[in-house]
């Protein structure tokens, strides 16, 4: 289990890497939590190099209980689904979603989690005051599959217009997703967009989709630092525990080691036996830990959602975990192995007598 933290951390990183190189995202320069007018859309669209555009809002609605957290996002349906071909919907579901103003689509993971079916009514309580005070009712018109790592299967999407009608502040977009014609020009296009809104009340910050996902993740706090700190603490603790266990094990077997030395086993062999035991035990622990992590940190079980799409343990994570366990075994075994190999036979036998 000691690898879980590190694995989660690297999994989060791989999530943010699951992004498209042709999509860039514009947010308010101050923070993602502030919105911008939808009038920005035309200005952005007129920027050279921009091929397509859509926008979305983080709704932050609550399904029955605040503990039932999942991403629920207001989108401009046609352009959003065009922008994200990774949202895989049956044609009839897509049509039904686009046509019905109160419709929503849910990821198959989310549908499995809450038992949502086509035609079901979902009521979300307002989580952000700007969306008014009354609950919002939605009808499930489609269950989408994730067709790529950039999209998770734990989110809910619905019409931006439906939300906007009841918002206290109208015509606001949380972020714009822009498709650039040439990925090599993404940096120039981003700079050009931001330049257009410089010195306005709604200055923007345009970056790659990866950077956007990272900033989204950081809304939950400095997750990287948090997970890194936990992982480091766990690894150091494990190191001390493993080292202490091996030292105790050697102390308990002082007589056996002295007997083996008396029989003629060289000190180098004793060193290798003790160090090898520590290494083997640690690797066995590592294999169990990685195996458990692969079962527990499963994309189908973890409802991370919210732009942390790939949240699992891949082969690289597993290799890092095993490498780390081997490292811990070697370090933890070194001092006890040295103690055992330098044991004075006569003193050890006298203690046993």
């Amino acid at each position, binding site marked *: 289990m000691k690898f879980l933290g590190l694995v989660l951390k690297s999994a989060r990183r791989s999530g943010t890497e699951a992004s498209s190189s042709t999509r860039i995202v514009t947010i308010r320069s101050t923070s993602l939590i502030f919105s911008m007018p939808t009038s920005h859309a035309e200005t952005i669209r007129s920027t050279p190099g921009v091929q397509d555009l859509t926008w979305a809002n983080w709704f932050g609605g609550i399904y029955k209980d605040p503990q039932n957290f999942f991403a629920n996002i207001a989108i401009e349906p046609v352009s959003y689904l065009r922008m994200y071909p990774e949202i895989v919907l049956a044609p009839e579901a897509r049509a039904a979603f686009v046509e019905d103003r109160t419709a929503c689509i849910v990821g198959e993971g989310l549908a499995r989690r809450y038992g949502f079916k086509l035609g079901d009514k979902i009521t979300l309580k307002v989580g952000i005051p700007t969306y008014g005070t009354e609950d919002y009712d939605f009808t499930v018109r489609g269950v989408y599959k994730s067709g790529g790592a950039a999209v998770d299967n734990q989110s809910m999407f619905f019409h931006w217009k439906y939300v906007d009608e009841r918002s206290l502040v109208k015509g606001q977009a949380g972020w714009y997703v822009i498709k650039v014609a040439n990925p090599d020009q993404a940096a120039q296009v981003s700079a050009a967009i931001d330049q257009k809104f410089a010195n306005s009340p709604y200055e923007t910050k345009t970056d790659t989709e990866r950077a956007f996902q990272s900033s989204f993740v950081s809304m939950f706090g400095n997750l990287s630092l948090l997970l890194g700190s936990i992982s480091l603490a766990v690894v150091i603790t494990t190191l001390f525990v493993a080292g202490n266990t091996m030292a105790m094990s050697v102390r308990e077997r002082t007589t056996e080691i002295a007997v083996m030395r*008396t*029989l*003629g086993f060289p*000190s180098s062999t004793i060193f290798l036996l003790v160090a090898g035991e520590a290494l083997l035990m640690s690797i066995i622990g590592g294999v169990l830990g990685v195996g458990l992590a692969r079962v527990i940190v499963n994309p189908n079980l973890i409802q991370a959602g919210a732009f942390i799409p790939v949240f699992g343990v891949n082969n690289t994570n597993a290799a890092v975990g095993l490498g780390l366990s081997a490292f811990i075994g070697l370090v933890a075994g070194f001092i006890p192995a040295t103690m055992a190999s330098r044991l004075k036979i006569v003193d050890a*036998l006298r203690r046993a007598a």
Partner: protein
Amino acid sequence: MALIELRDVTKSYTRDAIEIPVLDRVSIAVEAGDFLGLMGPSGSGKSTLLNLLAGIDRPTSGSVRVGDTEISSLPERSLAGWRARHIGFIFQLYNLIPVLTAFENVELPLLLTNLTKAQRRDHVTTALGIVALGDREKHYPRQLSGGQEQRVAIARAIVTDPTLLLADEPTGDLDAKSAAEVLTLLQRLNQEYKKTIVMVTHDPHAAERASHLLHLEKGTLVEQTRVG
């Protein structure tokens, strides 16, 4: 030439900056095929002398020669190899490895040789046969009596056919019957298999089985007698 020769051997330990003399200029010679008993009160230096002969301790001064090898000047790594080839050690508390069966305990010293698995099996079977425990090879030490454990320990000591058998109070933890069996076995190894044995003992009955006796007192040799 004697098989074992100690010349002017002195041994002292330092405890809390105080030097404690254990052996003082001891010189002895043991012929091949002898069964030597080392006697003396506690603290007289008997076990220290045995440890020096086994190469698990080093003299402060003087020399220890076994066969052609001056073991007091051998480096540690060579000494370990020398012990594996030439010394069979029998401990008072048997010191079998508890997680290994009788067979595996006896096989342990053979893992340091180039023998094949089949050859090792032959050697172990022979050794366990000599100590009359051929039917207990799959038993763990906890499943054996004290006397049987010591006989397994003797099998482990003889399995490599060493030059010298060293026994430190081999009957010290046994009842009279088991002790007699172990002593008979040692005597048989000496007389039938011509093994040179050096045995430390407090027990006068055990000492009677030796062919020579050396008496140590306060680290010096006080008497040397021939038995029988």
